[in-house]
């Protein structure tokens, strides 16, 4: 690890932890319905929504009512996006005249955004119209994150309330998360991104004659607004095929830093909020410490592995050692402006959370370098984790740990004053096992026949990694890929779609 990369990693972690407390306090206030400094502007809008919807914000739902509301909301959102994708040829804001998306791809994409996975079977600039991106995908980027946070808040209430049978009102939590937290943060981040060169325009693709006289067609679009929420909502589905490696999504080292912070800032804030609402900020900091250590471990391993370069190129006359005037290391699939350090940190962060955006191509990582994102996803993305979902994944681990520890010392296991009994542990195990089962069953089926293996870019052991990565990514709702796999086939679109559903909803239920 170079001194430069170590400095950058330290900067990242310090800024992230510094932001966690103020944001966590703010979010606690929002979900507890207390006055915040945004109230004068947002409160009237919020009240208007409740009036229109006939929602009494004081009336809470039991867990069944809450869950039904979530499922109904997700189903409607899914149908909405599916219809938009299928019909985009007849909808406005389609300067490139893209036709409707075919059914299996539309299904995969709609499930993917609804479940906050954002797996990219589609190639943004060659498949989707501005309308699909702006209206269809942006909406899901916001609300799938707001749903994740709502679930966490409901879970916390369920844990800390000893007698009450209600866990809050889904419509209220959903509205508050969107209006007070996601929209304002996304707006600030988006404007910063535009100032650095992330494009945001509705004009069509721009054809230019290059300096040497060649032709180049520059893909355009309303990128900044989607980029901001794609990071903050740990969604990760890029406007362009190359995702955040694309210079129009991520043009400078500064946008790279801010986008990486945006991935983890809400999850880190939620950890603080968890401690606060559970009545023990100390417990929040303990969790934060565990997560930070795991983040650092992943980042350092990935960095060292990639900095060492690709041993298969040693004999080809390539210089892979870092110096003051070149980044060195394994640069296949990486952008020069990010080099090794800022690429590997991104790969770690994006899989710690369930973000799944990439600023370098994980498929071209060395064996150990590529193992870090895979391991992060396979543990269920609980290192800060996705917005809301990461923290409740962590709670599953805690319950299991408390149970085992309780057995070892021979007393009734308790967490936050609640007894952990057979029912709870059974539920936790079903969640864990369904996750592993979904990944392994689908990978096994995909490896044995041509409909699975025909789509691989790399044969042999690396090809198996591509398949395993794809289904892990789907089940963990991550959405990043060893992208050599051509996942846009009916089998993969449906298979990964089902994996995403299992990974998202089973633990919830």
């Amino acid at each position, binding site marked *: 690890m170079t001194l430069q990369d170590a*400095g950058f990693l330290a900067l990242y972690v310090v800024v992230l932890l510094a932001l966690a407390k103020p944001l966590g306090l703010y979010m606690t206030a929002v979900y507890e319905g207390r006055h915040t400094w945004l109230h004068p502007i947002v409160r009237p809008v919020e009240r208007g929504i409740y009036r229109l919807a006939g929602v009494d914000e004081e009336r809470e739902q039991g867990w069944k009512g809450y869950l039904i509301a979530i499922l109904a909301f997700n189903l409607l959102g899914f149908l909405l996006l599916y219809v938009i994708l299928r019909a985009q040829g007849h909808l406005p804001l389609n300067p490139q005249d893209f036709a409707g998306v075919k059914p299996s791809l539309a299904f995969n994409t709609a499930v993917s955004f609804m479940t906050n996975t954002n797996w990219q079977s589609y190639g943004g600039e060659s498949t989707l119209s501005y309308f699909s991106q702006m209206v269809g995908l942006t909406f899901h980027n916001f609300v799938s994150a707001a749903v994740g946070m709502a679930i966490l808040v409901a879970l916390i209430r369920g844990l800390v309330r000893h007698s009450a049978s209600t866990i809050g009102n889904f419509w209220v939590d959903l509205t508050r998360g969107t209006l007070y937290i996601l929209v304002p943060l996304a707006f600030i981040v988006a404007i910063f991104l535009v*100032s650095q060169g992330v494009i945001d325009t509705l004009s069509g693709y721009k054809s230019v004659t290059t300096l040497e006289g060649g032709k180049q067609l520059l893909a355009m679009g309303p990128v900044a607004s989607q980029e901001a929420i794609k990071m903050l909502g740990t969604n990760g589905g890029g406007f362009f095929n*190359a995702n955040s490696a694309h210079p129009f999504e991520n043009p400078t080292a500064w946008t790279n830093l801010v986008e990486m912070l945006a991935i983890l800032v809400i999850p880190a804030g939620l950890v603080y909020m968890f401690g606060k609402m559970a009545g023990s900020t100390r417990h929040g900091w303990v969790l934060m410490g565990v997560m930070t250590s795991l983040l650092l471990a992943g980042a350092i391993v990935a960095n060292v592995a990639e900095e060492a370069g690709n041993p298969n190129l040693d004999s080809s006359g*390539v210089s892979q050692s870092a110096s003051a005037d070149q980044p060195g290391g394994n640069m296949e699939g990486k952008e020069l402006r990010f080099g090794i350090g800022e690429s590997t940190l991104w790969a770690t962060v994006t899989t710690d959370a369930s973000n799944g955006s990439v600023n370098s191509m994980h498929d071209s990582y060395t064996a150990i370098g590529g193992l870090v994102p895979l391991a992060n996803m396979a543990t269920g993305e609980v290192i800060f984790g996705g917005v809301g979902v990461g923290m409740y994944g962590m709670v599953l681990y805690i319950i299991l740990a408390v149970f085992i520890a309780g057995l070892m010392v021979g007393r009734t296991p308790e967490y936050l004053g609640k007894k952990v009994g057979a029912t709870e542990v059974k539920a936790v195990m079903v969640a864990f096992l369904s996750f592993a089962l979904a990944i392994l069953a689908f990978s096994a089926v995909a490896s044995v026949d041509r409909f699975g293996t025909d789509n691989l870019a790399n044969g042999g052991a690396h090809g198996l*990694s591509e398949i395993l990565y794809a289904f892990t990514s789907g089940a963990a709702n991550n959405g990043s890929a060893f992208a050599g796999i051509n996942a846009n086939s009916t089998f993969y679109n449906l298979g990964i779609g089902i994996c995403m559903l299992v990974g998202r909803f089973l633990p919830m239920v």
Partner: protein
Amino acid sequence: MRAITLHATWEAFRPLLTVTATLLVITAVIYPLAVLGVGQALFQHEANGSLVSVDGQTVGSNLIGQQFTEAQYFHPRPSAAGTGYDASSSGGSNLGPASKTLVDDVQQRVQAFITENDLPPGTKVPVDAVTTSGSGLDPDISPATAALEVNRVAKARGADPAAVQQLVDHYTAQPALGFIGEPRVNVLELNMALDKGFPVYKP
């Protein structure tokens, strides 16, 4: 009786439909339009793609790499976007580290780089010059790569290599605060400056 059922149905679905509709308007219409409006008003150049032009003719974007093959220009990294620097089809090669295609490609690119720049055989070529980027649209090369191309470019333009190297140094960006970002040279920017400082006759 009928009216009551209808009313009850509406009440059951009312929160779902109205909350979805209002959040859709706020997040998918008002929010993107607000970003669009503010972005276009405050940062017009950046919001529209940081386009650059020569004699009033747009030649590309400062942020997006483009293909250069002629001897009098510095060359970008190899690209896996479409047939090379296709800015409507971004992407990387996605070749794994053990891929034979990758190893062969790199070997071939190293030889081509050495021949093209008339370097002594066995010269170690910087890794960025022979690998494709993640986007296929990387606008930059490393200063080390640029330095190896200076002699060829200077010769093609009948210019003094030291003067060309000076120009490269001028266009080399250093990491902010010493550790944010990487040392790099923007190829399009540098080539535009070359055309200005050391013009060649173009038929």
